[in-house]
């Protein structure tokens, strides 16, 4: 408990100061999250959920919430994509968003400003998608986050252009633990794209908590492209809450980082929800990429679709754990899961585990997990047409990976990803 205690001392110290100054609205939530973190403790290697991913070891190296040190300027991407752009420092907005500068019905602000303004009932939304007892890293982030970003779209409003968060600057030391809250009120729609630029040799450690709420009839489309450098660590806690007839889609594309854990939780808590969760990762060198997904079907007549693909080479490690829970009352659920990975090197490894837990009797669920090398027959077919082995390999890898990128619906972002895949995989195939 030594690490936990040290972090908790820091967290409680900060909370005490905060209470005295401002009566910050989510201090109670933070206190509760700190309590949850205290009782959960950081996962050891004996913990089933972190068996293959020794994240706790990485925390030891940065053991502080203090990230006042140097900032790493990372490489931006798709800055020219039509959209509503924001840059962040340590996951927070760099400046206040001027009133009137956004489409009507859309709010993008810091959580603290939104609280002070009190126009949007944040207490109704915060911690609605997130259960502090679920995961130690998310509760640590929830307890630690001093501020965050709110993206809110009012009922009935559709925001056509995507809101694009460029997570361009990040501290080189300390735990960076921001909070992001996205709320799509009833019958609204919004697209959120997040980009984590290449941090080169900087050693950023980001442990974030993201809560997304798609209210009745609303639609949220979310994309994360993570391209930090090899020294970077990322724990990405996404917690999604859906009301009836809502639509939620997220695509998690991990192309960088040294150690990455995506914790993706979905709670379609109303009838006729649609949930799409897709992901792609390419792990090279000594990268370690772990995707843990959990779809909790609590209500009947919902549909979820999951597709995760990975390419693992060199000494890299890929982990996929996809859990689907269909609760007893959740009849007429269609839940599909597919995870496919390609292993290109004998020293590389993949641990894939689908978990279906079904307590309702009238459901359609399926899962498929495949791990293999590139298909020899396919390679031979291409080579029998004069195509060189490296080019043949590249064609097959690109085809495999593009499948997930095809699901991105902003063309300019899709093109960016196609060209990134091409250059990453060209290196891999040669």
């Amino acid at each position, binding site marked *: 408990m030594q690490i936990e205690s040290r972090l908790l001392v820091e967290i409680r110290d900060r909370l005490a100061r905060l209470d005295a100054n401002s009566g910050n609205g989510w201090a109670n939530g933070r206190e509760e999250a700190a309590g949850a973190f205290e009782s959960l403790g950081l996962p050891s290697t004996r913990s089933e959920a972190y068996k293959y991913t020794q994240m706790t070891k990485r925390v030891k190296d940065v053991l502080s919430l203090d990230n006042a040190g140097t900032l790493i300027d990372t490489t931006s991407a798709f800055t020219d994509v039509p959209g509503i752009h924001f840059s962040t420092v340590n996951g927070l907005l760099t400046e206040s968003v001027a009133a009137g500068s956004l489409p009507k019905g859309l709010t993008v602000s810091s959580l603290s400003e939104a609280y002070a303004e009190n126009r949007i009932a944040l207490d109704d939304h915060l911690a609605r998608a997130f259960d502090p007892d679920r995961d130690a890293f998310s509760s640590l982030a929830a307890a630690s986050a001093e501020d965050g970003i709110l993206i809110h779209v009012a009922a009935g409003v559709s925001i056509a252009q995507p809101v694009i968060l460029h997570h361009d600057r990040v501290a080189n030391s300390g735990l960076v633990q921001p909070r992001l809250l996205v709320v799509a009120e009833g019958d609204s729609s919004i697209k959120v794209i997040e980009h984590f630029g290449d941090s080169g040799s900087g050693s950023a450690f980001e442990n974030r908590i993201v809560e997304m709420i798609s209210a009745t009839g609303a639609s949220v489309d979310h994309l994360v492209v993570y391209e930090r450098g090899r020294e970077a660590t990322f724990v990405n806690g996404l917690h999604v809450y859906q009301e009836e007839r809502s639509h939620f889609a997220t695509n998690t594309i991990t192309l960088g980082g040294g150690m990455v854990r995506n914790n993706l939780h979905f709670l379609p808590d109303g009838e006729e929800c649609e949930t799409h969760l897709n992901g792609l990762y390419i792990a090279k060198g000594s990268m370690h990429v772990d995707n843990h997904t959990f779809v909790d079907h609590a209500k009947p007549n919902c549909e979820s679709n999951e597709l995760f693909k990975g390419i693992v080479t060199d000494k890299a490690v890929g982990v996929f754990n996809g859990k689907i829970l269909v609760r007893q009352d959740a009849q007429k659920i269609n839940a599909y899961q597919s995870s496919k990975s390609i292993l290109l090197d004998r020293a590389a490894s993949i641990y894939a585990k689908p978990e279906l837990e079904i307590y309702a009797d009238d459901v359609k669920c399926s899962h498929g997990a495949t791990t293999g090398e590139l298909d020899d*027959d396919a390679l031979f077919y*291409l080579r*029998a*047409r*004069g*195509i*060189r082995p490296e080019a043949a390999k590249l064609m097959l890898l*690109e*085809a*495999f990976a593009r499948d997930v990128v095809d699901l991105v619906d902003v063309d300019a972002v899709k093109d960016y990803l196609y060209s990134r895949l091409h250059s990453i995989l060209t290196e891999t195939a040669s």
Partner: protein
Amino acid sequence: MLTINNLHVSIEEEQKEILKGLNLEVKPGEVHAIMGPNGSGKSTLASVLAGRDGYEVTEGSVTFDGEDLLELEADERAREGLFLAFQYPVELPGVSMANFLKQAVNSVREHRGQDVLSAGDFLKLMKEKAAIVSLDPSLKARAVNEGFSGGEKKRSEIFQLALLDPKLAILDETDSGLDIDALRIVADGVNGLRNENRSFVLITHYQRLLDYIVPDFVHVLVDGRIVLSGGKELALQLEEKGYDWIKDEQTQTA
């Protein structure tokens, strides 16, 4: 063009000898048919010539256009002008026909010292060659062989043959799974591609294909060896009497 001398081939994993001293000489412009019962080694011959992994040549040699064919990798053989029309063309989801064909054509052209084709010229070439086997040129937007009917797959193989313009084409059971109309289209395509420089090796179980593509020579492959060679009339004899007749004769000779 192609000289196969005393070729012995085993399957690597099974240590089982499939070809047991095969001899064949194919001159430019000639069409040779290799017929034989199931398990005689026909497809092994096609695979070994095209350079598929998993086979071990234990004895003998193969010379292609003056070069030691067995020293070349599969893709080098294709660039040198050897083409295999697959018995079972592989489906490649996500790989578009257009990208696949462009890469194939350009690797071969580059090897021959020809310019890489512009997008416009490539499209023109595709249209022209697709017409040879009545293929809809809109197939270029589809993934390689994915969702193609059996007939489309075989026609697409001949279309690729036409695009790559090889010196030697080996057709492995191209007639299998084709109805009579598709067979005629494929045969007409192949006949249109015959010329004094291009040679063909047709590997087939049945004589049917040879009604449409008339060979110069017919060889009978039994148990890894060519046991009988003759002109096109030999195919008719086989159709009439079956392979047992030859097997019996073999036994008697032995």
